C-alpha cells in the first residue's frame, strides 16, 4: 500500500482515539492540539518501522501514550488535580438531553485527568477498548497488575463522581 495513503487512512480511522488520549493528558485546548500534532508526526515517522507485531490501533495508542506522558513531563505537570475544563463543553451547547450528555462527557474527561498517572494510563487504554493483554504490552507490566490498577482507577472515578454528586 502507498505509505501516504496508509498514513491518511490511519489518521482517519484513529484520529478520534488520538484526540481523546491527548485530551485525557492535556486540558488546555491549544496544547492538546499541539500534542495531537506531535503524535501524528511521530506516527508518520514510525509507521515504516511497524512490522505488524501489534495491531495498528495498539501501535497508535502506544505512540500517543508515550508522546502524552512525555508532553506532561515536559510541562512539569505530573499528575495534577483537575477541575472541569469548560473548553471541553461545546460553546454552541445543544439543548436538553444532548447538552447533558456533552456535560457528562466533559466531566468524565476531567475525572480521568484527575487520576494519578499510574491509574490514568490503563484506564484511558481500556476506555479505548484495548484488551488487558494489549494494555499490559503497551505499559510493559503484567496483566495482573493491569487488573489491579484498573480496579483502583474505577474506585477513584467512582469517588470523584460521588464527591461531585454530593457537592
Amino acid at each position, binding site marked *: 500500500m502507498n505509505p501516504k495513503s496508509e498514513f491518511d487512512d490511519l489518521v482517519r480511522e484513529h*484520529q478520534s482515539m488520538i484526540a481523546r488520549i491527548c485530551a485525557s493528558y492535556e486540558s488546555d485546548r491549544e496544547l492538546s492540539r499541539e500534542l495531537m500534532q506531535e503524535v501524528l*508526526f511521530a506516527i508518520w515517522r514510525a509507521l515504516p518501522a511497524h512490522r505488524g507485531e501489534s495491531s495498528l490501533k495498539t501501535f497508535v495508542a*502506544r505512540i500517543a501514550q*508515550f508522546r502524552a506522558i512525555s508532553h506532561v513531563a515536559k510541562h512539569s505537570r505530573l499528575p495534577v488535580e483537575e477541575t472541569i475544563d469548560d473548553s471541553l463543553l461545546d460553546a454552541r451547547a445543544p439543548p436538553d438531553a444532548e447538552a447533558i450528555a456533552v456535560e457528562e462527557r466533559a466531566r468524565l474527561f476531567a475525572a480521568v485527568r484527575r487520576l494519578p498517572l499510574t491509574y490514568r494510563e490503563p484506564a484511558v487504554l481500556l476506555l479505548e477498548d484495548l484488551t488487558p493483554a494489549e494494555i499490559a504490552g503497551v505499559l510493559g507490566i503484567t496483566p495482573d497488575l493491569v487488573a489491579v490498577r484498573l480496579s483502583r482507577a474505577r474506585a477513584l472515578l467512582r469517588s470523584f463522581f460521588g464527591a461531585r454528586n454530593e457537592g
Partner: protein
Amino acid sequence: MKDESSDWSSLKAEWRAGTPEDAALGARLRASLTWRIWASRTWFVSELVSFVLLGLIIVQKFAVGETFVGGWLSALAAVCVAGFVWARRARHIGATGSVPGMIDLSLGRARQGLRIVYGSYLVIAMLLVLALREAEWPLDGDDRFLARIAWLAMSAATAIVYHLVTLSRLQRFESLQRLYRGRQS
C-alpha cells in the same frame, strides 16, 4: 467483578460517544502536518546536498595538494555522516514494544546525543586550531580566516543550543524512567 466490568462498559460508551474536539480537527491537523512532513523532507534533501558539496570541497582540496585540510574535512564529513545516520534512526523509537521501552530508548538516545555534542565541541576546537594555524598574520584583510571563524561560531552556537535541548530531554526522560521503575510492582 461483574459490576466493575459493567461500570467500565458504560464509561466506555460515554467516553467514545464523541471527541472533545470538533470532527473537522483531524482534517485541519492533517493539512498542517503536510507542511511539517515537507519541511522534514526538505531538511533531509538539504542534508544530502550539503554532504555532496562537502565531498566536492574535499576532492578539490586533495586535487590542489592541500592534503592536510582535505584530511581534516574528511574527518569532519565522517562525523557528520555518522550523526546523520544516527538521527535518521530516531524513527524506530515509535516502533518499540512498550512505553517504558520507548522511554529507555529515548534516554539512551539523549545520552548518545550528549556524546555527539561533546564530539562536536572537540571537532570545532580542532577546526579552530587549524584556522588559527593557517591564518595569515597580521589578520588585516584575511577574509578567509574571518569566514572560517564566523562559520565556527555558528557551529558552536548550534552545538550549544542542541546541548541545552538534549540536557532538558535527558532530565525529562530520567524523571519518567524513575517514575516507571518506581511503579512496576
